[in-house]
């Protein structure tokens, strides 16, 4: 279970996230929704300590993974990012590496050199990302020869290869067509059997059909969180109602 408590994030003394407390249950898909600039991506990035790399960023409050504080002084951010993987809005495979090398780049970076193990891990990760059948005969090809949807699944395979406990997805389908989007969502459902998925999306339909729980953020604050079915049929807060019905935002 991933949990944040009173999480506050500011950039150059400007508060972007103002004390958000949320629980992301294990092996569930949680969606984070809200208008542009509400802090969705900022929240997501806090979960694998990406703000460590941003000058002027200050993170206070607590983020725990299975009870363990990830911002603890003894925690290595690189190791945290292996346990909590991330997929971005725009597919970003390494363009100078082959499909195969992209899939196992995380493992290579963490020092794995055994070729047999790497081959096995690449196949497993590409299979888990529902891409193996489409690329098994062209593993040495450049990833830029793949379609956008395939590139995104390659990025998911890259994240899965290091066996994360949580997968963060920042608008992973916003650049994809409906068929590629459906494949990613199908993949999310399969991944839910073994890991926790958190997705930031602008697409209300996607949040409604592809998540178990939904959290609505507005102006850096959590307005409402709960089971997706409840949020999209009978939200408790009028602000949530107004946002998801398109009356503001």
């Amino acid at each position, binding site marked *: 279970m991933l949990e944040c408590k009173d999480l506050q994030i500011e950039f150059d003394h400007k508060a972007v996230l103002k004390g958000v407390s949320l629980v992301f249950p294990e092996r569930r898909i949680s969606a984070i929704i809200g208008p542009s600039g509400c802090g969705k991506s900022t929240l997501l990035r806090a979960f694998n300590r990406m703000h460590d790399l941003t000058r002027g960023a200050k993170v206070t409050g607590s983020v725990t993974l299975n009870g363990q504080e990830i911002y603890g002084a003894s925690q290595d951010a690189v190791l945290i990012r292996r346990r909590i993987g991330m997929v971005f809005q725009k597919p970003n495979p390494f363009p100078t590496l082959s499909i195969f090398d992209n899939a196992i780049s995380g493992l290579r970076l963490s020092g794995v050199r055994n070729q047999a193990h790497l081959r096995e891990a690449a196949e497993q990760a590409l299979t888990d990302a529902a891409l193996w059948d489409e690329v098994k005969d062209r593993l040495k090809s450049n990833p830029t020869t793949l379609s956008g949807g395939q590139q995104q699944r390659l990025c998911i395979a890259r994240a899965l290869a290091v066996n994360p406990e949580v997968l963060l997805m920042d608008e992973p389908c916003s650049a994809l067509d409906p068929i590629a989007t459906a494949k990613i969502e199908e993949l999310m459902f399969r991944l839910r059997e073994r890991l926790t998925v958190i997705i930031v999306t602008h697409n*209300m*339909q996607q949040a*409604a059909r592809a998540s178990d729980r939904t959290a609505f953020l507005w102006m850096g604050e959590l307005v409402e969180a709960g089971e997706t079915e409840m949020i*999209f*049929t*009978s*939200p408790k807060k009028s602000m*949530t*109602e107004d946002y*998801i*019905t*398109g009356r503001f935002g």
Partner: protein
Amino acid sequence: MPRPFEAELRDLKLGLLAMAGQVEEMLHLTQQALAERSTHKAELVSRLDPLVDEAELRLDQTCIDLLALRAPFASDLRLIASSLKLVPGLERIADHCCNIARRALILNPQPPVLPGDELQRLGAATESMVHRAVDAFINGDAPMARAVILADDQVDALYLQIYTELLRNMLADPLCIERSSHLIIVIKNWERIADVATNIAEEVLFILEGVNVKHSYLQANAKP
């Protein structure tokens, strides 16, 4: 300027109101056809039915279009989903009115079976339930919707009382069996209309509060 979707939802509500108005008119005529023994009003009920059928088809299509094209959520979704149930409910009431009106045509020329005003009271109580259920929808009035649901028990009790009396009459006087049989069908239709009014009130509560109050005994007995 309202969004096109707002205008479409408003049109849906107006369409429902127009259909409910036609159904209420049919109900009133049905009640009068029996009370006044009016053949003219009984025939009028049947003539109004195609208008309600047309409204059903039109509003069904509107709801399907809104679901497909606007992918609504929350209160918008509840309104459209409930409309898909309200519309056939209203159409069903119109059909029950036609059933009663057909029996009125047979019964009106014959001597009355029931000496009292029970039949009028049953019709009036049912008509009032439909009227209040529609009002609750128009005004977003949850307490009124709850009152309609509670009123169903009174209609059921009155139905049972009249049914028992008709059975007793049939046993006592075989000459009134045919008329009483027609009347049993009449009161059964009134009772079914009251059930539909209850369903409408339940949908109104779902639209307003997002709570499903149907079959509450199941929820009360549900395991946690």
